[in-house]
């Protein structure tokens, strides 16, 4: 899948460049996130600004990443969340779980502090 990753002060900013994070691509996305975690990354910003559609498979991959990081002492926050994903978070009550920031800089600053 098409995804970028950059490190800013030991915070990894990951940005999928796919418009749809769905069942067709979720396994590849999850695999990539597992690789980052296995490489020792434990502070992660997931920038979803390019993503317009997320289904339950994509959402499960995001939740799984959050759990893996959090249970291992790390943290993941999210930014660039569009209205569709905001609505999905609310529908599944996961809006109470994710820390969501308006932009990447705010998200990175939070994890750096």
């Amino acid at each position, binding site marked *: 899948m098409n995804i970028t990753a950059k490190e800013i002060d030991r915070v990894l900013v990951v940005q999928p460049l796919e418009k*749809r994070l*769905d*069942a*067709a691509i979720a396994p590849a996305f999850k695999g990539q996130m597992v690789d980052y975690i296995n490489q020792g990354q434990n502070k992660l910003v997931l920038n979803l600004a390019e993503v317009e*559609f997320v*289904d*339950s*498979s994509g*959402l*499960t991959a995001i*939740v*799984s990443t*959050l*759990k893996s990081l*959090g*249970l291992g002492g790390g943290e993941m926050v999210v930014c660039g969340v569009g*209205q*569709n994903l905001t*609505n*999905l978070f609310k*529908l*599944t*009550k*996961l809006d*109470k*779980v994710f820390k969501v920031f308006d932009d990447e800089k705010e998200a990175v600053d939070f994890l750096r502090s």
Partner: protein
Amino acid sequence: MSTEGEIRLTIKSRLQSVRLMGTAINGVCLAAGCDQETAAMVELGVVEALNNIVKHAYQNQPEHQVETKIEIEPNRMVFTITDSGLGLAGWEKPSLEFDPNDLSSLPEGGMGRYIINSVMDKVEYISGKDVNTLSLTKML
């Protein structure tokens, strides 16, 4: 003038094809007068159903067909999805209980059925000898 009528779309049983159907569903919803947020939610509900059929009714075998009939009426849209795969149980809404402060309790499955039942106003499924029929109704 509202848009009413019926359209049938057929895809192969591949997750990549479900994407195409999702895009089409979104367009039809907008043409029927839905706002963008409703169209996106309806697209999601239908995509979740199609994903289940591809993955579980057809066990990810890509050579089968899934037909979706979309009926647009003045006060509702009905999506009738038919397949000839395995009959599936469990289309009813599961509970999605978790403690937001306990990461280990977060769900990693079952959200698809929860989404379908939350988005749609009625979900009905009949598994027959040669064909399964899932009917999803969204009131407008």
